[in-house]
């Protein structure tokens, strides 16, 4: 049974905020790390979940004095793909990076407001940023496999480098590769360097790496911007399958991509959320004039 299914998400509210301490004292028999508590991989393949609901409430993000995200409130529903569109510099990447608290890694950057995952505020004191990032995975613009690691080591990097037990490593790695639609292509060269794969395969390797730690939410920051059209199509197909396992949030510059993959589309402009709605409606009959102008190519 998955401990995270309970309403309070006890996995996230470890009494000891130092994840390291919990790692060195593996009290739970199922596994010493936080978000593998329960350890079972049965959730992969589950058709519907009650977890992975994400809510933003009054989220603001700053780079020094630059107010990049301005009071955004919205929901991301589980088992759905939400696309965030908007012109360059509108704050869509910044907003997404606030969800897994990667924003604060940048010197001088800070965020205010609330990000709730299944009712739990990820910015609350005592919440460990490591736990947040295991619950909210991320895939970046450019494929970034670790150059010193093999294919399989890349996939299990999140498990190995956070101290998960070795025994289940291979199974979890294979499962993640299957989940990312890469298993058939790489099963005979798991020991080859991760960077020896093609660009599209590398990006799916990065998706597998994110899936291996079994997150509830997967953030994708323009995941296809460095890929050719065939590799892009492959990933778009994959996104449709991924939403059965994780809540998908995808930032994209490409409006056709948003129209193809997203159930819900969000339009941002100058750090503000302008409009959110079902993708069909957003692209055919949006409420806001600015959304209409953007999706019809009048600016941006």
């Amino acid at each position: 049974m998955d401990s995270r299914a309970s309403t309070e998400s006890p996995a996230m509210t470890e009494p000891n905020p130092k994840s390291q301490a919990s790692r060195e004292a593996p009290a739970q028999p199922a596994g010493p790390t936080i978000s593998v508590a329960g350890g079972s991989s049965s959730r992969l393949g589950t058709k519907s979940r009650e977890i992975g609901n994400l809510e933003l409430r009054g989220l603001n993000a700053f780079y020094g004095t630059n107010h990049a995200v301005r009071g955004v409130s919205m929901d991301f529903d589980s088992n759905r793909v939400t696309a965030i569109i908007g012109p360059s510099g509108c704050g869509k990447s910044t907003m997404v990076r606030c969800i897994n608290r990667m924003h604060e890694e940048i010197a001088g950057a800070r965020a205010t407001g609330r990000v709730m995952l299944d009712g739990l505020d990820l910015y609350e004191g005592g919440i460990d940023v490591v736990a947040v990032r295991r619950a909210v995975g991320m895939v970046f613009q450019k494929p970034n496999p670790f150059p010193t690691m093999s294919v399989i080591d890349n996939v299990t990097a999140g498990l190995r480098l956070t101290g998960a037990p070795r025994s289940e490593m291979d199974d979890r790695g294979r499962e993640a590769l299957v989940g990312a639609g890469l298993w058939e292509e790489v099963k005979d060269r798991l020991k080859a360097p991760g960077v020896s794969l093609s660009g599209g395969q590398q990006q799916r390797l990065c998706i597998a790496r994110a899936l291996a730690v079994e997150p509830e939410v997967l953030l994708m920051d323009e995941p296809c911007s460095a890929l050719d059209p065939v590799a892009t199509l492959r990933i778009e197909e994959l996104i449709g399958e991924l939403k059965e396992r994780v809540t998908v949030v995808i930032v994209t510059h490409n409006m056709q991509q948003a129209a193809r993959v997203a159930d819900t589309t969000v339009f941002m402009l100058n750090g503000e959320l302008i409009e959110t709605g079902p993708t069909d409606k957003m692209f055919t009959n949006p409420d806001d004039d600015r959304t209409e102008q953007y999706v019809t190519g009048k600016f941006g």
Partner: protein
Amino acid sequence: MSTHALLVDRGNLRRRNRVNRLVEASSTVAALLAVAVLLIVVGSVLSKGIGALSLHFLTTPAGLFGDTSGGISNAIVGTAIIVGIAALIAIPVGLLVAIYTTEFAPQRIAHQVRFVLDLLNGVPTIITGIFVYGLLVEHRHQSGFAGSVALAIVMLPIVARTAQEVLALVPGTLKEAAYALGVARWRTLVRVTVPTAAGGLITGALLAVARVAGETAPLILVCSIFGQGVLTEPSEALASIPVFIFQASESPSPEAHTQAWAAALILIAFVLALNIVARAFYARSRKRMGA
């Protein structure tokens, strides 16, 4: 005016062509000169030293003062010990300094540390020798360890600066990837950043070793009066190749001069070999970092 006028060679264009040729020619000559200097140095050391080079020379310790029947085995062993201990001190400290400045220090402090390291790199090694003399030799006695400390001080800025450059080349996207997986910062450093940069870090360390292997001035001050035979105790003064070259070349005997050339040949060969190995590691590192 037809457009063909633009294609006609006018005075201005001719002048610019001349300047272009002049710059190209002079920089080519300068590059050839640099290569020539190396070839002349290596060539003269080779021609003057090869005569004294023999297995006997490499495997026999130096004779008593003035006796040229011996070899440099004690100097080879001494240099290995002195440089080895220096490397054991300077490489870990240098790497930690580099890690601190690239991964942890605020921008301003990192900048200042870099500046200090550049200053340290510019300190004449004779000054380093005098400093270590006052610290470890005065009122005590010369020792191989004092030589190691002096060489470690010379090595430190080289190791730290090259490591800084290499660590800064590790793509930020890799660290981001690790952080986004929930990997702690120190663990990202140890398991992702340092392994990615490993080739370049090894290169820097090898170049620093090559640089101090021939360092003479500080050793003359702190480690040049040593006993007979192959000595291995670093608390006592040890022989070394550079000090052997210095002392043999001061001798009035032509045989000793030839021995100095032969020892120089060994030293140059060692330094060249280290440089070649270092380049191989650097090439591997660049490939990893996508440069």
